[in-house]
């Protein structure tokens, strides 16, 4: 995933320079923009960087790059708590609600997370509250059987997603499982009725047990629309973490830097492929290194 990255080459060329001239600054700016940081976050970073370089009297592009790495790392928040709530609390399972726009990898992520939890010897239940998309519940159930956990789903297409979520969480409470993972239909944040439906799903679940995690799944290829996704989804379900998927491709996922600035919610997990084991904890340093690679 390193090869055809235009910017990588740019930065490399830059590092071989002796002095910091306007070209160096332009090159850095392009690196950030091309990683999807967006113009606002990029402008702020550039200002900060120029200020620090001036104060320090830094002379080499290498040092500038180092400082940039530090600033980025600070933005990503190296000290944030990125753990998932996966223990029972007050005699109730931990409910994890998974949300996001269409096709980002919600269902797949649930399969992968369930796999990790099973490996940790937890009792897990899946709830198929995507009753809309063709074969969505079957897809989740296939993941369930793949990793060896049961799935609660409705027999009929187009059932009320909130009531399926309710049934799943109720089953989880009754069976005293550790974690209930609830899959939801993909929805674009500008669709008010679908966002209202999501709010309802959460409220109905909470008649049974609190939603301990609301994970926003974000496709690493996402551009500036990620900001609008973060804003609206967090208004509706109070996001507790971001899962950045499809990082096995060429996209850097730089939009999470801007999202982090805006929301302050940490990226907790990353997706690195379509298989059950292609999930990893988010590593801020590795992420920043890849951004500047």
């Amino acid at each position, binding site marked *: 995933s390193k090869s055809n990255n235009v910017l990588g080459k740019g930065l490399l060329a830059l590092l071989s320079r002796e002095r910091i001239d306007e070209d160096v600054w332009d090159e850095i700016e392009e690196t950030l923009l091309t990683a999807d940081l967006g113009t606002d976050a990029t402008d702020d970073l550039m200002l900060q960087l120029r200020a620090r370089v001036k104060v320090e009297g830094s002379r080499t592009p290498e040092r500038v790059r180092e400082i940039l790495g530090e600033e980025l790392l600070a933005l990503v928040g190296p000290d944030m708590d990125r753990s998932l709530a996966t223990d029972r609390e007050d005699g109730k399972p931990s409910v994890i609600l998974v949300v996001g726009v*269409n096709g980002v990898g919600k269902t797949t992520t649930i399969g992968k997370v369930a796999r990790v939890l099973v490996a940790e010897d937890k009792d897990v239940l899946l709830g198929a509250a995507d009753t809309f998309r063709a074969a969505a519940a079957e897809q989740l159930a296939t993941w369930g059987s793949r990793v060896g956990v049961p799935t609660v789903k409705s027999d009929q297409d187009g059932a009320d997603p909130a009531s399926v979520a309710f049934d799943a969480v109720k089953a989880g409470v009754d069976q005293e499982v550790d974690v209930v993972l609830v899959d939801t239909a993909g929805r*674009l944040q500008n669709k008010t009725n679908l966002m209202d439906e999501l709010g309802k799903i959460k409220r109905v679940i909470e008649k049974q047990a609190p939603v301990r995690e609301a994970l926003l799944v974000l496709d690493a290829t996402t551009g500036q629309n990620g900001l609008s996704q973060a804003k609206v989804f967090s208004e509706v379900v109070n996001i507790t973490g971001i899962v950045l998927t499809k990082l096995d491709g*060429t996209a850097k996922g730089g939009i999470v830097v801007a999202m982090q600035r805006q929301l302050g919610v940490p990226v907790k997990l990353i997706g690195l492929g379509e298989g059950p084991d292609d999930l990893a904890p988010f590593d801020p340093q590795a992420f920043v290194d890849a951004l500047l690679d």
Partner: protein
Amino acid sequence: MFNSLSDRLSATFKNLRGKGRLSEADVDGTVREIRRALLDADVAVPVARDFAAAVKERALGAEVSEALNPAQQVVKIVNEELVSILGGQTRRLQFAKVGPTVIMLAGLQGAGKTTLAGKLAKWLASEGHTPLLVAADLQRPNAVTQLKVVGERAGVPVYAPHPGVQSDFEEVTGNPVVVARNGVSEARQKQHDVVIVDTAGRLGVDEALMQQARDIRDAIRPQEILFVIDAMIGQDAVNTANAFNEGVDFTGVVLSKLDGDARGGAALSVASVTGKPIMFASTGENVNDFEVFHPDRMAGRILDMGDVLTLIEQA
């Protein structure tokens, strides 16, 4: 969050109004705003750079300096350049002279291929064709079931000889190349005049899967290979479009999820780096949410200019 380009340009133009002539500095300022708006719309950095340079060159030329209202003229140039890269006139589907017309879909994971297959099938059926859908994604869990449901909703038959990955069939045993080839034979036999082949999502950097896509293509010799791309994609649009262009040499582009609020600058990036036409827009999850692509609407959307003509009048 960010001001729309119309706001920004209006502000820039306010200073220009009454000036009559644009100085190079005036043009520079305007072009900077345009570049920024393109970047905010997710147009790829190198594409935005070239675009801004082209606009600048024209803006400094005679057509602007001799115009009654130079600012208006700049907006007009921006719009014209955008529409021309986005394709000017839309291209229609190419049909085979003999035998069934084969349409293959390709794209990243989750781009909207399977959904599009249903939309395309329904639309073609409404135009008097007799399409057959072919389930050649044996990889994503329940992709075959998904296509079957989609086909049912579209009222179009689905050729699905292999169940793909399902709870009962965990291992991938079928061969998508064979399924695709047999799908075309099936269509010929049952006298369907169009075959739409749904394929698994794949990354541009996944050599093995890209080779598989090429193998499918070579086995079915499609008249059209449609590259489906999500309108929310950011700077990676260029890498991805180039990879698929080199990988399968697609013939047309479909922009999906245009019902969202993404600006969709990727449209400009893809069209400009591949030169391939954008043919359709996918605008929702339902089987009817599908349109022929309109370059002029897209131009206004990317720059958030709404009705460009109104803006030109205001300038």
